[in-house]
């Protein structure tokens, strides 16, 4: 099978299909084999063992939301670093590339320092 560039991805797709098939098959077999005798008590949310009170969704801190922003910034930063790291040693790059990355990481570091200063990175 020769699909050129995408040929390598076909195998990933094959594994994906096998994975979905096996998981779906297992859940289907489970559905066929298991008993189902529900009672109101069984269908109550477990939470911590005592009877649940009020709405199921709890309020949570906005900080998690800020974290996902920070994550997006730094994940993108890391993704920019990867191609840089692979071509860095190639002829024709060298010093200029290095200085550019210093500048880029300087900006990113400024970001984390700003978050730090704004007390995003404190957990009480």
């Amino acid at each position, binding site marked *: 099978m020769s699909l050129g560039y995408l040929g390598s991805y076909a195998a990933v797709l094959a594994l994906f299909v096998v994975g979905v098939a096996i998981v779906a098959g297992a859940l289907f077999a489970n559905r066929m084999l298991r008993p189902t005798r529900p009672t109101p008590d069984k269908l109550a949310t477990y939470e911590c063992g005592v009877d649940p009170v009020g709405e199921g969704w709890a309020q949570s801190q906005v900080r998690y939301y800020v974290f996902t922003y920070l994550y997006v910034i730094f994940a993108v930063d890391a993704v920019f670093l990867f191609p840089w790291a692979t071509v*860095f040693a190639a002829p024709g790059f060298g010093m200029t590339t290095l200085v550019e990355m210093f500048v880029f990481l300087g900006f990113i570091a400024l970001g984390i320092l700003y978050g730090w200063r704004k007390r995003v990175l404190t957990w009480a």
Partner: protein
Amino acid sequence: MRTTLLAAADPTLADFGHDPLWISIIKAVVIFIVLMLGVLFGVWFERKLISRMQNRYGPNRAGKFGLLQSVADGLKMGLKEDLMPRTVDKVIYFIAPVVLAVPAFLAFSVVPMGPKVSMFGVETPLQLTDLPVAVLLVLAMASVGVYGIVLAGWGSRSPYAMLGGLRASAQVVSYEIAMGLSFVGVFLYAGTLSTSEIVGAQAGGNEIFGVPMPSWYMITLFPSFVIYVITMLGETNRVPFDLPEGEGELVGGFQTEYSNSLKFAVIMLAEYVNVFVVSAMSITLFMGGWRAPWPISLWDGANSGWWPLLWFFAKMVLVFAFFIWCRASLPRVRYDQLMALGWKILIPVNLAWILLIATAKAFRLTGTDRTLVYALGIVVLVGCALIWWRFDSVMQRRKEEREAQVQAEFEELGAEPAAGGFPVPPLDLPHYHGVARKEVSSGSN
């Protein structure tokens, strides 16, 4: 100076994508079966080893040495009644374990397990596939797995599950950044993101005065390796970073509402496959991949044929045993400590380390202006020292301020206990005469 030990059997990126479809399917199914069996006996191995570390026997009833214990547990979970609580979001609740499990398996498709071998007459590498961005695929799959965690917590409609899900995702994304950054050193040295070529790049070390130097990146890039080991524990929510399941705080975390059924089994499966994936990545990127370790590598046939599967398996067992060792010996860290370690130590240290090795590498490249490198190095060093000094003095000032404040409050409360706003009993009650005199005699003893 670089001794090329690359044999003809060593796969490169060009060797992938030519397999007949049936070979790909055989490899995919074998990977699946091996991972499933790996989880079953990995759980057994973990329970047995941790028992021995804690001076007890562990499972020893089902089968010889309790070997069939996990098989029995798996069968039981498959045949149990499945409870879906009334309030859950049914679709999300059902999808979440699948979203957790499938990417975990997918990440294993780029793990190199051996050189090219003859499989049913077809010359093919012992690796399902390789991509120009193979390591990125692993990181991407880890990110998709986070969706499974968040959705499991969200769909459960239970406060504990929801908090556990958010906490787990915050932890995983924080450690994923440090993990991705610890790979950059490897890419700098190997010059590629393809897993098979990274293994190839660790094949032969330089020789200094005829003495072969170690070629595994765990030695040449030791700081990256240490950071990776910490992040791989954090990324898979293992002890000492197993806060998402912190029993005392969050019951079972995001999986609280998944009662002991097949869906729970799928979540556990995903967790263990994730452990295997990060172990395999540590081997591929830092420990020479499927190549034999030093004393064995003196034997010429060690890195050819099917033998490398054995070395790879042995390394997997060792890394997994390290996970268990950590679990047996380390206490769980506090949440603020965990996040502070990730954001304030691992990420800045990692960035600094990347710049350091990049500069060192630029220095070694011929034809570069060395004075510029020196100047940059001095600027960075002075900058780091300045930042550290600034932070240190600010911290010190804050600490002193806090201490003074606490002391002032203490003095105020000592004079008038109710001044703090809380209705506290007076500390100088007339009937209390100190510990020396007993108010009520306690009999003859």
